[in-house]
């Protein structure tokens, strides 16, 4: 299970970095989204992977991390998701503006090789 999750995070991150380096605005946004997925999974995994443990207190169970999943990483992930969602929305608007302003979806506003 750990291997599966770790390699999923690695693949998401690698794909994200590849897309960001393509320097096209749409690929850039997809890449950043994939990177934020990888980061969220990474934070989530830091609470340790364990089946059948609720993050909220149950009646009758001792109040230790042996009986419960660590709720803090889940709260952190929630915050990180909200922030990265807002940032992606903002970046989309900026990328659309840049695209309509310069007529090129390259992040430098002109095709490589064109003279400015």
């Amino acid at each position, binding site marked *: 299970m750990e291997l599966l999750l770790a390699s999923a995070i690695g693949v998401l991150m690698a794909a994200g970095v590849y897309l960001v380096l393509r320097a096209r605005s749409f690929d850039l946004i997809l890449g950043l989204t994939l990177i934020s997925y990888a980061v969220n999974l990474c934070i989530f995994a830091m609470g340790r992977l364990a089946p059948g443990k609720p993050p909220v207190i149950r009646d009758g169970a001792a109040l230790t991390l042996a009986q419960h999943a660590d709720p803090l990483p889940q709260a952190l992930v929630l*915050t990180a998701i909200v922030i990265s969602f807002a*940032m992606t929305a903002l970046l989309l608007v900026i990328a659309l503006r840049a695209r309509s302003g310069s007529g090129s979806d390259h992040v430098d506003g002109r095709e490589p090789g064109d003279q400015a």
Partner: protein
Amino acid sequence: MNHLPVLAVALPLLVGAVLVLLHAVPINARRVVALLGALAQLALSIALLRTAADGTVSVYLLGNWPAFAGIVLVVDRLAALMVLLTATLGLIGLLYALAGQDRRTPHFHALFAFQVAGLSGAFLTGDLFNLFVFFEVLLISSYGLLLHGGGANRVRRSLHYVTFNLLGSALFLIAVAVLYGVLGTLNMADLARKIAQAPAADAAVIQSAGLLLLGVFALKAALLPLYLWLPNTYAAASAPVAMLFTVMTKVGVYAVLRVYTLLFGADAGVGANLAWPWLLPLGLATIGLATFGALAAQSLRRLVGYLIVASAGTLFVAIATASEASIAAALYYLLHSTLATAALFLLADLVRRGRQQAGDSLRRVDALAHRTALGLAFVLAAVSVAALPPMAGFLAKAMVLDAIGVQGHGAWIWTVILGSSLGVIVALARAGSHLFWRGDSAPGPAGAAALRPRLPERAALGLLLLLGVALTVFAQPVSEFTRATAAQLLAPQALIAHVLGAQPRAQLEPTP
């Protein structure tokens, strides 16, 4: 419990929220609200500094949770000093914008207030994840402010800037998650205690998380490989915004100072003195490259952008020496360089308006209206930035060099810093002679009256220059304060004990 620390974050947030609601009222009413908010923030931060000045560490438990479980705000000398600097520049930037630049974006005042809130929060928080959240608060308002005024160039620069910072945030989150995964806490004081006790088996993970954090802070502060975004971005921003951004670079410097003295300081066990061996060579290389950038810059605003990069490099070199004297000198240098580069940004804007065709270009020749007054202001700011006597810049650099000394790598550091000063003098002299001495006399009286800097603009620039002079005149008390701040930073045990020992209030008073 003293509620001052949380007010320094809550007040600008509240002012910003009110300003969003007031978007339909006439602009003068919004200006009054924004200005009153900024003045109140300044008063608050002075009060904070007064409580912290005698070395008291105030701990504010948000939500009345004990420190290990909830988020804390911590006010020590460094945090109070940085909040005061932010409030001062926020007020002056707002004043400058009142002359008309605030009309160009519907929510300028609100974004400005949110940015001040984010900056103050980042300086005050004692929790690593909360530091990330405040970074995002200040970044998201900075995105809005950078786009302020519009234009294709600004949009493109914003795209780069946002992308850079999103990648930085991703790395920040990974580092925070790893630290939490290993140590089980996010409170900085608790982290410091646990890193010091961590077994050697965890050393590699803790050190890599720590260095990942260093990469993120270096991105914010524009250290060598990660500085490329800064001159372009700052040159694209409007003047009051660029001015406030000068504090934003210092957030990175602050975060390095805070995290690598508290979490990875001298007694941090497996993480001891993690950052210093990296910061020294990178800082020196940053100074060198930024000097070449300043010499080659083709507009005044890009020149100032490179000066900010050079000042960040100098700060990191001084911090990496990690002695009480060098950190004290770095803090004095930080105050001076923030004020002086902020003044130069405002000046660049006035020059741009005074020259009708050439803008602030250092290649094209054009007449400049009101060049005597602008030239005098330029000399005052430039002399300080170039570290010539008698201004604060000279004192700051002398203090830095004196604290570093000549033993060990000292000779190299002296060579680089003094060589960079020479380069900056040449760059500023070239820029000044080009802008103020070349070109014909000013346009006729009709044109000149229209180009005259407006009262708030003159007041804002004058205030900044006056603060620079005050920093020179009151160098003794200010440097005593920075000395005490450095001593407090290098002895974090008291702060750790204070934060972890903070007791939640047993019961809240019944509300009437």
